[in-house]
């Protein structure tokens, strides 16, 4: 037990890296995902094709492969990234593919009559999107996006494959050093569960807040 007590601060530090990976790639992935969703519904055919291909590739290949390509493969092309930036990049690209579909679902879920009503008062496309469609799309997309955030938080464990010292990797080394695999992995699992519980509660509160208006 002593060893685990000693290991606890290490696990906490790994937990911090996990949260950093999850939050950073969720934020960046949301921005990229929103752009892809806009491209996907755009009037411009090339943009639509790019968005469709993007989603197809990044949703259709394992995250682990994407992480490996970025960390081990890119140096062959002269692009060398540190482990943590590699992991954040891969997680961002990966989650953007899923998030763009969630956002698109939200936008398409807004009744066509809303576009028409805005159009009938002479509102231009961009402002209609911002003032009328976006606020309703967010509300429709929130449950799916929240679920994606939670999934992403767990997916960060794959960063251990490229030497990022995040929670899963710390748990593994603590286990290796102490042979107390059960305790260290259960403790790491509990930490994942804890952050995801916080996220679900936050999502619930957000849904309630968004739902309040109407």
């Amino acid at each position, binding site marked *: 037990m002593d060893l685990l007590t000693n290991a606890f601060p290490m696990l906490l530090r790994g937990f911090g890296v996990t949260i950093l990976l999850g939050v950073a790639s969720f934020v960046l992935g949301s921005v990229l995902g929103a752009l892809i969703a806009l491209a996907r519904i755009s009037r411009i055919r090339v943009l639509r094709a790019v968005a469709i291909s993007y989603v197809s590739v990044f949703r259709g290949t394992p995250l682990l492969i994407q992480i490996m390509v970025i960390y081990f493969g890119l140096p062959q092309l002269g692009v060398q990234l540190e482990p943590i930036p590699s992991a954040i990049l891969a997680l961002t690209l990966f989650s953007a593919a899923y998030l763009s579909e969630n956002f698109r679902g939200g936008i398409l879920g807004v*009744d066509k*009559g*809303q576009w*028409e*009503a*805005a*159009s*009938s*008062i*002479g*509102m*231009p496309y961009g*402002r209609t999107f911002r*003032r*009328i469609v976006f*606020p*309703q799309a967010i*509300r429709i997309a929130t449950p799916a996006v929240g679920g994606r955030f939670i999934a992403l938080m767990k997916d960060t464990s794959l960063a251990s494959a490229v030497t990022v010292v995040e929670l899963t990797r710390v748990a593994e080394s603590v286990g290796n050093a102490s042979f107390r695999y059960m305790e260290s992995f259960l403790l790491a699992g509990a930490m994942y569960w804890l952050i995801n519980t916080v996220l679900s509660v936050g999502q619930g509160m957000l849904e309630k807040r968004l739902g309040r*208006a*109407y």
Partner: protein
Amino acid sequence: MSEPTIEITGVRKRFGEVEVLRGVDLSVERGEVVVLMGPSGSGKTTLVRCMNLLEEPDAGRVRICDCAFDCGAPRDRSARRLAQRARRRTGMVFQQFNLFPHMTALGNVIEGPRQVRRLPAAEAVALGERLLARVGLADKRDEYPSRLSGGQKQRVAIARALAMEPEVVLFDEPTSALDPELHAEVLDVIQELAGEGMTMVIVTHETHFAREVADRIVFMDGGVIVEEAAPDVFFTRPAQERARSFLRLVEHAAVPVSAPLPRRGEEAV
């Protein structure tokens, strides 16, 4: 007489295999109330939607106030701008209301004045309150649409259309989505507008209302205008057989909804 407010010439519109409008000419004079009637699928909704370019015709010409469009040309940026300008001159009231659910009644009404006409907040709010009072909903200004009845929603939608101070208001079956007992409150508002000289085009199946409010009935069938006449003439001695058989059908099913309804508690037992 001055130029017509809306002038439609040779308009055609096709949805896939179906040609919904097959060459329609129609003009709406300033201050005139035109009621479009006809069996379902006759193209009346599509026609009214062409009058603010919500639907862009495949061919023909549409002039809305001072904005003229030759239809069928590719929609470039300047054409979209012109369409926006034309839409600012027209108001539209939809069958399904299409209120913005995330805004209060007042928010819905002042959205156009604030965002499109760029009125200062205080001025827009004063205008919004005035219009809500005009449709009898001054006390609902802070309610969200989900807390309003269908008739109240439609009256908010009318106030929203009026807030753009349009030259003409288009109504696409404004009472079709409402329970029968709620028709009167909406029709009364429209009738008041007619009394004030508002130019309006109304698609409706309400024959009693049409007869009272219209200056001219336009009867459509199969994507063309079959008959145009003053309401007295149209409802008593329509010239065309198609109009006669349509009237027989609707008169048969008609309930005089715009006539005063018995108040709650006074219903016959």
